[in-house]
């Protein structure tokens, strides 16, 4: 009897153990299913939230999947591009191919390294956009791409209004400045009678001050013309060597006065004629020469040289002047920028000379640059290509 009871107990125990195990497994499975369901609901919520963000985003958004098919386009992008989502979603983006700006986007879709950052695109007269690309990746694997379209129509308009305002103001200022120049000149020339030396000296100071104002106004007007794209005149074949020599002549006096050792190295082989806006290139050379002379201390050295190869002509000017501090070099070509050490030497200077020079050279499809070390000197150079596509 004892054995039977033992057997019964063992079986009973096993049965209970299995029941407990089944119950545990059952409950464990239930828990797992609940977790999965919760995760699924959360995922759907996240997706809905993201969709809500994209749909209501105030910039235009286009999402491409990793096969470069258009997966999503939001309402703002539809409006910008005058297109309906149904027409182009899930199809290869042939509809977008009609836009000229889609070319670089296509390149980016194929190669995410070729990203686009804030590229200006004019859609029509009333709409200018800024386009940026974003690569969506996870652990170095591409999941797709995002195109962002940002409306900058208003910014462009404000920029235009600002330029017009400066242009207007500068033009208005020219007449009274002219009048002052004229009247002072007449007095200084003795047309209105003899003056004492002291009177003459004082009036000369006025005259020089006025000349500075006139130069600043002219620089401002040049800047507005650059911004409005009205700057370059029709280019004609010119000899760079002649332009350089003519410009140097204007500085001969000051170079001698400052006792600066000046040398102009003419090109070994004659430089072929370049199609240039001669006046503007002269202005550029003048700006560079002006800086070199202004910022080189008496007794210093300035070397100008010209050379050319098959593709381009290069102008180079090296001085032993005060140089440009390294932390200021990045901003050198900015409008109104003047180096701290330059300001100490001469407070006068518009800070527009290099900005204008850079614009002129780049409008000729050339390159301008420099190397400089504070207190040692600077070397400025620009290249002009022989074959430029039309400006």
């Amino acid at each position: 009897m004892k054995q039977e009871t033992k057997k019964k107990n063992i079986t009973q125990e096993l049965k209970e153990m299995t029941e407990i195990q089944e119950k545990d497994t059952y409950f464990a499975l239930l828990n797992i299913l609940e977790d999965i369901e919760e995760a699924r609901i959360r995922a759907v919520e996240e997706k809905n939230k993201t969709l809500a963000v994209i749909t209501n985003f105030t910039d235009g958004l286009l999402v491409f999947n990793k096969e470069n098919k258009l997966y999503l386009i939001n309402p703002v992008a539809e409006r910008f591009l005058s297109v309906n989502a149904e027409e182009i979603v899930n199809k290869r983006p042939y509809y977008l191919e009609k836009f000229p700006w889609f070319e670089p986007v296509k390149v980016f879709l194929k190669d995410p390294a070729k990203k686009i950052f804030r590229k200006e695109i004019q859609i029509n007269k009333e709409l200018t956009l800024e386009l940026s690309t974003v690569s969506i990746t996870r652990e170095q694997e591409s999941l797709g791409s995002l195109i962002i379209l940002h409306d900058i129509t208003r910014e462009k308009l404000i920029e235009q209004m600002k330029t017009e305002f400066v242009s207007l103001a500068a033009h208005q200022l020219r007449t009274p400045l002219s009048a002052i120049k004229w009247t002072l000149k007449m007095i200084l020339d003795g047309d209105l009678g003899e003056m004492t030396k002291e009177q003459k000296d004082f009036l000369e100071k006025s005259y020089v001050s006025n000349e500075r104002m006139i130069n600043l106004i002219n620089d401002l007007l040049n800047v507005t013309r650059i911004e409005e794209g009205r700057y370059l005149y029709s280019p004609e074949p010119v000899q760079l060597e002649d332009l350089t020599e003519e410009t140097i002549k204007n500085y001969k006096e000051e170079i001698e006065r400052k006792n600066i050792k000046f040398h102009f190295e003419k090109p070994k082989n004659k430089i072929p004629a370049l199609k240039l806006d001669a006046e503007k290139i002269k202005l550029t050379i003048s700006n560079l020469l002006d800086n070199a002379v202004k910022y080189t201390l008496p007794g210093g050295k300035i070397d100008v040289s010209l050379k050319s190869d098959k593709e381009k002509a290069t102008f180079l000017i090296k001085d032993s002047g005060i140089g440009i501090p390294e932390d200021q070099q990045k901003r050198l070509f900015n409008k109104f920028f003047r180096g701290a050490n330059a300001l100490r030497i001469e407070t006068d200077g518009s800070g527009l000379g290099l900005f204008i020079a850079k614009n002129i050279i780049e409008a000729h499809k050339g390159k301008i640059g420099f190397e400089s070390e504070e207190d040692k000197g600077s070397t400025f150079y620009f290249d002009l290509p022989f074959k430029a596509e039309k400006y």
Partner: protein
Amino acid sequence: MLKARSKKILLIEDEELILNLLQRKLEKEGYKVSIARDGKEGLEKMIKNPPDIILLDIVMPRMDGFEVMEEVRKDKNLKMIPIIIISNSGQPVELDRAKKLGARDWLIKTEFDPKEVITKIKQQIG
């Protein structure tokens, strides 16, 4: 100082200030100066009383300097009179156009000084 034998200058300029200054200087040099404040008035005066030389502003109301020059070219008597334009901007576009329309020389408003004006006038009519 030898008086420039009363050569007649017609000064066409809308800005009062510039007009006054130029007129003063030219009369001081001995020239006879008549003035007009816009292109139309200028044309009327040069027809009535042809000057020896014309100083012509470009930017003016009613009729600008370019329009004046185009009218002058059509008249066989008027087009013999030397014209020196007064340019506001000094931009090559403007100066070139004036040259093509027959201007003999130019002055740039913000840059010219009394001596330059007299020199250029003397070059044309002595």
